[in-house]
């Protein structure tokens, strides 16, 4: 087995991206994701890769768009305000059906907000974000190990479905240091006959474009893209269940909120409250089925979020409001303490007496 090293979440994403064959990084520094760019700045020149600090987030995402068109693995990273700036470019990448990785290490918002961790870009990440009908595959790591592992997954899924993917982390995931076993370097083997690589006068030109002059054609492309999304929803959902077997309450939480929830669950179970966790690892596609099935056995759901309550809407929709969903949240850069989650559970237990 490979040796463990101590890494920050941001560094783990950078190193894992390099090991997944990414040699093109374009970005612009912003707290709390800056170590990712700093790591790329140090490493890329040594391995024949490109690190480029663009003049803005808008430039960086358009550079990503350009490299993505050539079929090479490419990424950018930022934090909430910076990711908002990138939305136009992300929409173009989605509209041109290109693979690319966008990392959002979220901070408190809206506006300039603050530099402490947050999950309040859930809507932006999972519902499209930019203009037009599209989705990103959104992965939500809950440990530094997953920051590394899901980076490789994100690149593979982007290639497989020819679409942009996003790692939606938060400031704590980016900053926390944990031991990691880094994935082995590998060479991605994915045919990309659509890539702009030079025709050598042997084939027709490949054209990268998101503009359609005939509305019927644009509609056709949109319908086809949503057929693809359906396949993804059927095949690529990832989640973790924790102590759900006999659970009477189900916490739904991702990222750092899921880590805190596990602490709360252990403490609550010691007090006799039967509670479990469903942790979405893919936020889109959202693990609807497992939540829907859980609704048949639990009394209620609690959505634990570092936002004013965004994922809670998907928890309600997933189980067609069969069971009530309560929110346990902190916002503006604050993290819920296990005690706050336990208090919520005790309140529900009391209500059932």
């Amino acid at each position, binding site marked *: 087995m490979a040796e463990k090293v101590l890494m*920050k979440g941001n560094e783990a994403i950078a190193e894992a991206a390099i090991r997944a064959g990414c040699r093109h990084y374009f970005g612009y520094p912003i707290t709390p994701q800056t170590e990712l760019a700093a790591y790329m700045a140090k490493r890329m020149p040594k391995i024949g890769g490109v690190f480029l600090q663009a003049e803005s987030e808008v430039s960086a995402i358009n550079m990503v768009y350009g490299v993505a068109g050539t079929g090479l693995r490419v990424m950018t990273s930022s934090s909430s305000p910076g990711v908002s700036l990138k939305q136009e470019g992300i929409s173009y990448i989605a509209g041109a059906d290109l693979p690319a990785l966008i990392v959002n290490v979220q901070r408190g918002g809206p506006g300039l907000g603050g530099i402490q961790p947050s999950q309040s870009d859930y809507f932006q990440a999972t519902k499209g974000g930019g203009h037009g009908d599209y989705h990103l595959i959104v992965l939500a790591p809950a440990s530094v190990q997953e920051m590394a592992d899901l980076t490789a997954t994100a690149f593979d899924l982007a290639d497989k479905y020819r679409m942009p993917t996003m790692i939606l982390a938060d400031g704590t995931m980016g900053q926390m240091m*944990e031991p990691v076993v880094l994935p082995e370097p590998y060479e991605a083997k994915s045919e990309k006959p659509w890539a702009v690589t030079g025709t050598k006068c042997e084939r027709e030109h490949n054209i990268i474009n998101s503009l359609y002059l005939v509305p019927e054609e644009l509609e056709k492309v949109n319908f086809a893209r949503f057929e693809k999304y359906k396949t993804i929803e059927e095949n690529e959902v990832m989640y973790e269940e924790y102590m759900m077997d006999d659970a009477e309450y189900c916490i739904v939480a991702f990222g750092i909120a899921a880590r805190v929830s596990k602490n709360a669950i252990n403490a609550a179970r010691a007090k006799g409250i039967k509670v479990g966790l469903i942790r979405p690892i893919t936020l889109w596609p959202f693990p609807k089925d497992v939540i829907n099935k859980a609704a048949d056995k639990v009394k209620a759901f609690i959505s634990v979020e570092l936002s004013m309550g965004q994922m809670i809407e998907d928890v309600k929709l997933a189980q067609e409001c069969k069971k009530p969903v309560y929110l346990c949240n902190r916002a503006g850069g604050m993290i819920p303490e296990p005690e706050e989650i336990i208090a919520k559970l005790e309140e529900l237990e009391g209500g059932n007496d």
Partner: protein
Amino acid sequence: MISLNPKRVTLFAGHYGSGKTNIAVNYALALKDLGKNVVVADLDIVNPYFRTKDSAKELNEKGIEIISPEFANTNVDLPALPASVYGVVQNRLRHAVLDIGGDDRGAYALGRYAPYIMEENDFEMIFVANFLRPLTRTPEEAFEVMKEIEQAGHIPFTAIVNNSNLGKDTEPEDVEKTDILAKRLSELSGLPLLFTSAEENVAKQLTLNNVLPMKLQKKYFDII
């Protein structure tokens, strides 16, 4: 492991996340135990998280003053240092522990205080090494970081500390197997290995000489 006659100024510099802040805090407490009048200055302008200020309560209770950037631990990510840092390098009556930011980028801020420290010439500039970090796995890589920091901070290193660890997963053998790397770095640089630092429970189990047992500062509760 701390000299009974320590230099007036002790500086800790090294790679990002090598453990400088934890060592600085624990070193300051150890100096205080020797009966010294101690001030800690946080010169990290590159990382707005994990600061000496996280240990403010403990240090203040022991009578150790902390000087940190005015906006440390707030939402303001403003890379500015307070004027009172000059007092730390100019007032020679107190022992000073300086926590420098990571890598060469973090050490640039030290440059403006370097002339005072060099003129007084009563300092220990310590390189903190964690050989279990991905960009300083070998003595050669660590030596390269040392040279970059010296160029940025304008103060030559005078000693090395081995703080190799895997966070809360650290086993004593993880630390012990890095001892040979620390000794090699000592040869490469011609500088003494001052001590090996480790979390106090790990430290107890180490068979190495000169170990600084550390209480780690905690910002959050332990998450599983």
